């Protein structure tokens, strides 16, 4: 594996792709440097959809800024509002009721399910296996309807608020029962899919050994999340988060770091998410949803890291008379861009898009980074 080193001499043939390209859903620019259709070097440029959301958050009341963080990304919107609330709660020392913590975990895991299903479906689509893609999209619809049932909207749920969760997201008996039944349905569907997928020798030969990211490189590039775990490193922030203390789950790893490992990684992790949701349903404590018993004070810059479907999400800001200052958000795809560039090297040009997709890119959320230089 170690001979996969980027070349430093001049490569004459360049194949640019993007910024708007049929093969890529989101606008970004990739330059492939090829020799005999083998990619020797790849370069990803982002910044096309820069909107400057941190600038909008600057000086807003913290409650408003929290709901604004949802608009960073339409896939992991709940993770952003969760981590943003968590930052303020850590700064202000707000105690969160247990029931609210459980509902947050349920929402987070449902979001992980829908994000992983989207990844599997998109991966199968890039593989040109539309039947598999449709099967996963059909499964994903069950998760989307559960999210709509809890949050009231299919994409931006607005579940977390300062000190707990919104009263709309209360889980009564009927909702818990539906959640429980749908978990069985999803598990059955996913088991079917995984069995059919791994038994398909054609698909397996297409994805085995493609887009390899060696473990050493993954650690050097600071890759996070499932892309790192697919190279064999058991690092999951959920094991350190206090929200997940009550739950019993495994950190899934895969050995190879190729497309097959990445796809199986997501499928196996979905089973763990189903497991966590089942534990949450059976043990959910009684109590109130929001803790209003706190006072707004000025805080220093507070940092919070959580594990989101794509890796480690970082939020930090200070509070000044109830308003957000010096906000910085760092999304997991920022770190995974290096992995995408590296995974393409040494593969056919036709597999390059697959190699990029295997790292689960989300350039929408990555494109809002502003560097704040403090003196």
């Amino acid at each position, binding site marked *: 594996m170690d001979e996969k080193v980027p070349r430093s001499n001049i490569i004459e043939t360049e194949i640019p792709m993007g910024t708007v390209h049929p*093969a890529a859903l989101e606008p970004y620019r990739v330059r492939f440097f090829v020799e005999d259709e083998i990619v020797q070097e790849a370069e990803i440029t982002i910044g*096309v*959809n820069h*909107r400057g959301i941190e600038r909008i958050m600057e000086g807003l009341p913290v409650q408003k800024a929290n709901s604004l963080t949802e608009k960073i990304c*339409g896939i992991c919107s709940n993770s952003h509002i969760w981590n943003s609330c968590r930052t303020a709660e850590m700064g202000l020392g707000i105690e969160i009721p247990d029931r609210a913590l459980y509902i947050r975990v349920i929402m987070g895991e449902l979001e992980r399910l829908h994000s992983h299903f989207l990844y599997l479906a998109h991966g199968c689509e890039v593989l040109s296996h539309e039947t598999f893609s*449709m099967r996963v999209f*059909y499964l994903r619809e069950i998760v989307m309807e559960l999210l709509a049932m809890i949050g009231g909207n*299919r994409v931006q749920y607005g579940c977390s608020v300062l000190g707990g969760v919104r009263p709309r997201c209360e889980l009564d008996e009927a909702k818990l029962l539906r959640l429980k039944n749908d978990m069985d349905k999803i598990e059955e569907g996913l088991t079917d899919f995984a069995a059919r997928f791994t038994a398909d020798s054609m698909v397996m030969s297409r994805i085995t050994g493609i887009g390899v990211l060696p473990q050493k490189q993954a650690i050097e590039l600071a890759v996070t999340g499932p892309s790192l775990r697919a190279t064999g490193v058991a690092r999951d922030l959920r094991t350190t988060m206090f929200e997940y203390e009550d739950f019993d789950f495994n950190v899934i790893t895969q050995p190879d770091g190729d497309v097959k490992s990445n796809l199986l990684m997501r499928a196996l992790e979905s089973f763990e998410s189903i497991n966590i949701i089942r534990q949450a349903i059976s043990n959910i404590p009684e109590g109130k949803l929001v803790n209003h018993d706190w006072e707004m004070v000025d805080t220093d810059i507070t940092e919070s890291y959580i594990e989101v479907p794509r890796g480690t999400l970082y939020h930090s800001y200070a509070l000044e008379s109830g308003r957000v200052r010096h906000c910085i958000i760092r999304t997991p795809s920022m770190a995974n861009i290096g992995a995408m560039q590296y995974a393409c090297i040494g593969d056919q040009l036709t597999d390059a898009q697959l190699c990029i997709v295997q790292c689960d890119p989300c350039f929408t959320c990555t494109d809002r980074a502003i560097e704040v230089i403090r003196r």
Partner: protein
Amino acid sequence: MGIKSFSRARAIHVMLVYTGGCNGCDIEIVNSILSPRFDAEQYNVFLTWNPREADVLVVTGPVTHLNRKPLEAIYEAIPNPKLVVAAGSCALMGGVYKNCYGDIPSEEIEGPVENIIPVNAKIPGCAVRPQDVLAGVVSLLPTLLDAD
């Protein structure tokens, strides 16, 4: 009904352009067209990524500065008759990003989409619901079929 309309009625091709929103509308639209639950293909509506094949252009997102030219180029590349659907509150009015820099005029956001290309139908929502997207695209079909 002419022969063009007759054949067009059996294969409406929709193209999606993403101009810098949050990806929420984007995925909802791709899913509503693609996924078996809200199957748009039962109405003979298909998804394409080639502007020269497209009849309907669905635009999401507030148009960011760097996305303006690609959007115009894609609009030019679509053959007549063409229709544009703006989907989501960002495409309709710039959404939360419009007043990015407060009172200081922003060069970052060029939207709403109406400022750049003519819009035939608007689908509100943040994010749009798949049912609304289907209704919006299907409501345009008579206009498209009466074009020639």
